[in-house]
């Protein structure tokens, strides 16, 4: 695979055998995050899966920090770790997910999933390594992801998508409400009398 045209190098490519401190930290945190992710998709306890997801997402947030994208790191912590995982936990509760080990956490599709995911992983890793093995990120220049810079970029160059996104969020909100309310009181069983007003809210 040496014939792949190499990306123009930044000056002074140190090689993989002499990692910098940032690299060591990145790899360590990455291993933790990946392990947590694997635990998330393999654990038989549903609530544990959510907690492992917290670890994985937090690890990714740390990686953002290491890549000097601090604003995104905090947003990641706030939104993912803060709200998304809480939502997922609520979802688990509402669907009466079993607490403790549930032997049925995996479907019968597991071997196929393993094959496909493994194949995809091998393919992607080989490709990525082959393409970027000599590409160097310079982290010594001023940070690229400070809140100031990000805010400027967002509200100077990306205002229109940002506003469109707000409309999309509104639509998602309305959609979630519509989906989760009961379709008319007649469809509801009679015992839902006390709850129908909540559902209709």
């Amino acid at each position: 695979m040496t014939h792949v045209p190499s990306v123009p190098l930044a000056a002074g490519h140190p090689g993989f055998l002499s990692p910098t401190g940032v690299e060591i930290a990145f790899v360590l945190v990455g291993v933790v995050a990946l392990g947590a992710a694997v635990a998330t998709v393999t654990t038989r306890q549903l609530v544990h899966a959510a907690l492992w997801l917290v670890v994985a997402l937090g690890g990714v947030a740390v990686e953002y920090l290491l890549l000097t994208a601090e604003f995104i790191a905090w947003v990641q912590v706030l939104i993912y770790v803060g709200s998304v995982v809480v939502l997922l936990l609520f979802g688990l509760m509402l669907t009466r997910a079993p607490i403790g080990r549930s032997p049925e956490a995996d479907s019968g599709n597991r071997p196929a999933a393993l094959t496909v995911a493994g194949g995809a992983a091998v393919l992607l890793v080989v490709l990525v390594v082959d393409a970027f093995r000599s590409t160097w990120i310079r982290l010594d220049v001023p940070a690229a992801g400070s809140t100031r810079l990000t805010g400027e970029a967002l509200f100077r160059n990306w205002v229109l998508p940002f506003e469109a996104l707000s409309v999309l969020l509104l639509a998602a909100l309305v959609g979630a409400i519509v989906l989760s309310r009961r379709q008319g009181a007649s469809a509801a069983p009679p015992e839902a009398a006390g709850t129908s007003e909540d559902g209709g809210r």
Partner: protein
Amino acid sequence: MSTQTLAVLVPLLPFLSAAAGLLLGGRAPGFVRPLAVLPTAVAAALAALVAARQGGGTPVRGATELTPTGNADLPVQLALHIDGFAALVAVLVGVVATAVQLYSTSYLRDDPRYPSYAALVSLFSAAMYLVVYSDDLVVLLVGWEVMGVCSYFLIGHHWETRAARSASLKAFLTTKLGDVPFLIGILALASDAGTFRISTITTRLTSSLSGWELVHPTLVALLLLAGVAGKSALFPLHTWLPTAMAGPTPVSALIHAATMVAAGIYVVARLLPVFASSAAALLVLAVLAGLTMAGAALCALAQDDLKRVLAYSTLSQLAYMAGALAVADRGAAVFHLLSHGAFKALLFLAAGVLIHAAGTNSLTAMGRRRLTSRVPDAYWTTTLGLLALAAIPPFSGFFSKEAVLAAAEHAALAHRSGVPAVAGWIVLVAGLLTALLTAAYATRMWLLAFRGTGAQAPAPAEPAGATGVGAIEEDPPGDEPNSLPDTPPSQPRARRQPAAMTVVLWALAVPTLAFGLLFDALPAWFDSATLAPTLTTSVLATGVALVGAVVTYGAWRHTTALAPGTASADPGRLLLGPLHTTAEAGFRLDAAYRAVAVRPVLAASRLARMLDRDVVDAYVRGAGRGSRMLGALVRRAQTGNLQTYLAVLVAGSVVLAVAAVVAATGTAGA
């Protein structure tokens, strides 16, 4: 109005009546009867007027071009040519059609399909008028084919019964079998002669000055003869006529007396110069006529079904006409055609009354019904008709048959030019033999029907088919309560025969009696020298007829004394001896046709069906089954499990990506 206009009106009126009847029949039932009878009667009157004006003199002519044929010298013309033959035959058609229409008003009184029936009868007579008056071969063919279609519908009037269906189909197919050569013959004749006009062709052929001759006279004559044999029921193609008795009796009268079968004879008479120019064709015609004559008479002697007896007698009488044509005497042929038309219509219509009254077609069963006292009109008119049929002087049949026999004798002994003497001998001998047989079967029929013994069974209490061996049911059950054999009050009702029927019978009895006496006046209408009976033949024929009658009577006395009131009282059984069974089945010709033509056709159609279903369809069905199986196979993938779908999707994209990478590296490396 000029004679041409009148003549045009003659076919037009029944045609319009038919169209109106078919259009209005369902909606205005009150108009159907007048609409059926009046135009036919007016047309008959007009035909008579045309005949009176023409008077046997110069032919009335008129022509207008109907359609070009692509050859400017050979146009199809709406041409009119009325000579003595045409005028008189048209009068016959008019009289018989009117009689049939009148008779049908009461005979089919309760029939739900009377409107269409009456319209078809009108159309039938219109087509016959067209054939009679037309001078153009193609227009004649149009009328000829319209008659074929109408006969198909009318014979199949009671299409609920299987017999009627198969009879109509048989009549249609058999006549069409003759019509194909007929069409080819017409085209060959026209291309030979350079015109479709009959009068032009005959004038050219008969004129001694022009010296013009047909290139293939025998071929053309034989081709035309095939069509004539189909329509006029000559020997090889005659089998449809006895079967056609499944139609209503008035239709039989119409077909047998004046229209369908007469058309064939009439066409030969019109085109006689064409036939006369080929001795071989005349000989063939003579042989066919002789065979049909004698064979049909034998069959008639064996039948138990009243209508079948009459049908076979028609065959035999038609063969007389064909025999007259075979000796190139069209005057005699048309003379016999006219008189036969009258008495045969009378016989059929009277037979309808008899069958009505007796509730059965079987002669043996009729003998026990005391028809003499119950339907005296029918009894007397039938007697008159049978006397005419048997050619007993002074009835009309005597004179016309004598004319035929005289012509044959003349041809046999005096060597007319162009007519082979053999043909004359054949016709003469067969004619004399048939005269004997005719008298025999007429006597037998009369004796069985009216003088049957076993008076102990006065009420018609048995179904029609029970006693008659080959009896065809006259009417389907429930169609016409009058003829239901098991209807108890049919006896008192039978006494009051409707006036329409009785009047028609007696009206037809007049020409039956007296028409023959016109033999002196008729040659003026025809081109014959004389139609007067000669002494030798009349003595000979009447003698053998009397012998036949007496022998039959003797046999009847003998058999009745042995076994009164049973089927074995039939004198025909005794007279025919071992031939009886064969003759009853029409000499097994139907079975032969079935073996020779019907079975191979059926087998071929089965083969075609098999090929279609098992070979051609196999591909179609195989394609359908293949895709169905493929669908079943593919359907297995539709588990409904989203994860499977997604896994397959991602696997597919991974494979695609791998392929892309390999392709990219491959090309980069190369």
